[in-house]
């Protein structure tokens, strides 16, 4: 913990200088998620010197840390106390930071059952486009005072302000975790998942690669064992899920660009050119394809979803309806009137 440092005043000075000079800032931690969104032309503002766990009391189920804190450091502290980040955030790099986790809002395989990054954000400290270091939310589970600016920050890609500190709700690790592989086709798997989803089964991850359904069961001994007997199949190494989360499975090595399709859970098989991997029990599909971006976006939009390309330098975030885009611009204008925070990262004119 000797590297723990509170550099919030320095960060505040940097932002104020940028505001005075009208210099756009490119906020970055370890750049582990730089492939998402558009490249930003701006002066680099590195958050990694502002690091360290500020407070963590396992019996309160709350952890507060500075934005530049490496995720692995946070996860190690939680692990030691028998707890975890339930949203299972992908690191996508060894030095991934808390700030990057919250700013990108990416969640791992447990997301449909446990919730997303934003679901676990309780409070934030933010340096605003008016050059102030402010606090929203807090370290309590329930807090409805004022607008929920903290959760708004999750997934905003640093376009609305600079996150300096985040308080997260954490949970105990389940007593038992057991993974299964069941050979079956894609349609059958999606049908089974829709059926199981209506029952109180301890499923906490579900993935299908075209031939095999991979399931994770988490809970008490009783529920996990009885589900295991009911579902059958062979046991699987639990590390499968971190390989999926970190995009280390063989599927991800294909040279074609990677797309993430977020679709309604009940969407059936999506016939698209390229290789597909189903995650989130059907609600997230990974696609490796060279098909044109517009064709992919159109097809996914038709089923009520959206598609994001993970290839560096690729087209930006999924388009928004005109009216919604107008409110995005208005919000950006209100919170970052000079446009210093990550201009263009999410959308060219934000």
């Amino acid at each position, binding site marked *: 913990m000797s590297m723990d440092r509170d550099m919030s005043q320095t960060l505040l000075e940097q932002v104020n200088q940028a505001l005075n000079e009208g210099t756009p800032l490119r906020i970055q931690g370890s750049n582990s998620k730089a492939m998402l969104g558009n490249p930003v032309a701006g002066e680099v503002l590195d958050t990694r010197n502002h690091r360290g766990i500020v407070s963590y009391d396992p*019996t309160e189920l709350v952890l507060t840390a500075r934005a530049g804190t490496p995720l692995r450091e946070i996860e190690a502290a939680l692990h030691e106390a028998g707890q975890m980040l339930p949203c299972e955030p992908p690191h996508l790099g060894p030095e991934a930071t808390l700030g990057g986790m919250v700013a990108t809002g990416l969640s791992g395989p447990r997301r449909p059952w446990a*919730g997303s990054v934003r679901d676990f954000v309780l409070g934030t400290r933010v340096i605003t486009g008016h050059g102030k270091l402010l606090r929203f939310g807090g370290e309590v589970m329930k807090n409805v005072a004022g607008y929920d600016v903290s959760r708004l920050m999750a997934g905003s890609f640093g376009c609305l302000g600079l996150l300096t500190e985040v308080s997260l709700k954490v949970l105990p690790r389940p007593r038992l975790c057991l993974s299964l592989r069941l050979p079956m086709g894609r349609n059958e798997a999606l049908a089974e998942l829709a059926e199981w989803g209506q029952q109180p089964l301890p499923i906490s991850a579900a993935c299908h690669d075209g031939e095999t359904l991979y399931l994770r069961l988490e809970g008490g001994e009783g529920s996990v064992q009885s589900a295991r007997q009911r579902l059958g199949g062979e046991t699987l190494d639990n590390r499968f899920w971190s390989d999926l989360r970190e995009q280390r499975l063989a599927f991800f090595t294909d040279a074609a660009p990677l797309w993430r399709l977020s679709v309604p859970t009940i969407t059936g098989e999506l016939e698209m050119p390229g290789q597909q991997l189903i995650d989130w029990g059907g609600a997230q599909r990974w696609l490796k394809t060279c098909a044109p971006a517009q064709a992919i976006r159109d097809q996914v939009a038709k089923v009520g979803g959206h598609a994001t390309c993970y290839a560096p330098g690729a087209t930006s975030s999924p388009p928004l309806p005109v009216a919604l885009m107008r409110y995005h611009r208005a919000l950006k204008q209100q919170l970052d009137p000079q446009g210093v925070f990550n201009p263009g990262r999410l959308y060219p004119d934000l």
Partner: protein
Amino acid sequence: MNILYDERVDGALPNVDRAALLQALRDALPDLEILHRDEDLKPYECDGLSAYRTVPLLVVLPERLEQVQTLLKLCHQRGVPVVARGAGTGLSGGALPLAKGILLVMARFNRILEVNPQGRYARVQPGVRNLAISQAVAPHGMYYAPDPSSQIACSIGGNVAENAGGVHCLKYGLTVHNVLKVDILTVEGERLSLGSDALDSPGFDLLALFTGSEGMLGIVTEVTVKLLPKPQVARVILASFDSVEDAGRAVADIIAAGIIPGGLEMMDNLAIRAAEDFIHAGYPVDAAAILLCELDGVEADVHDDCERVAAVLTQAGAREVRLACDEAERVRFWAGRKNAFPAVGRISPDYYCMDGTIPRRELPRVLKGISDLSAEYGLRVANVFHAGDGNMHPLILFDANLPGELERAEAIGGKILELCVKVGGSITGEHGVGREKINQMCAQFNSDEITLFHAVKATFDPQGLLNPGKNIPTLHRCAEFGALHVHQGQLPFPELERF
């Protein structure tokens, strides 16, 4: 009384010619039901916070989306404030009308549009009652998790506006965690969908921002809620303690044992006695505190967890640990807690329910502080507490017929909330700010934070026509009425003139 809208500190409101507005509404919306006679307006003068009343300018009761859209456009053009109301059960005055504004009642939008058990969602209109959703999906073995105590009457649109909670939040989350999509109309009458049928949507998380925004950013017109499979079993343990400190420690010990109960409630002695007298739940009336711990899920796990929790409670110094032996006893244990408010109502002519949250470790200090305040103000306070998630509901007992008692009750209530903020908590866990806690907002947030909230508001409603005066205080209100305690030698809002 500094709670009712005061144009001097809350901002000037446009003067509206009522007769002209009524005529314009009738011309534009001939089939819209409009209440305008005093005797018809009177029933709408307050919501669940009945100590504060204002008769609205007009009440409208639309039944179709197009009517709401036309109404909003018309009000926007004419600069008429609009206060939205669902079932009117809110406890913070979020739907308290304005004498210069229209009250838009959404209660007639009461249809369940779609139940999809395979997709685990239901699409409903905003006036649908919270409990009606769970009842409608019960045949599929599913339910909608957030269960505010008003769930029999409160509407889902109001739940979204307040980010409503309930007794199962620690495990199942608040409204914000259980809603997939909300369709809204902006102040200009423009339709927007926030969230999506998928688990996430591109752009900023406006759904999270909108949830709990108290009708200040738009009008909810449709809600897609998540459904969960009903837990197989639920069992309840009742534990009694000789001190509230021991009970508080026991809660931390349960969490430390890796168990997240479906519900975990605490009551202090005054609340226990009132509830027992009313419901005969079998509570130990001489205990300093009781804990009710509900464990739900798959039978085998619940069985194991019950044993673990019983051991933890005994270890923590519980003098008695009782597992409800059957469903009837489980319901009886809960009945005492769920009727704690009316039970307190029987022992006092009036009571005032507070809603602060604190980090749980601060419980002994806060209870001590409340007890000191109770002595200082000469008013009894019963404590009911969502112990799992740190949400306190102190009930202040008073008699509104005695001169000065309501004012004393408000004053001690305000002090309790400021105490919650001081130990790192919040002035509201689930009831919302509304008008009730508008002054305490100034204790929780500084002027820059409040300014940022106003910037968020200006994004959606630059003229400030939607529910003016709620949720976010003006800086002038903070200067005049805000918690004027001197913090670290500094007056709050030193930059502002006081008048």
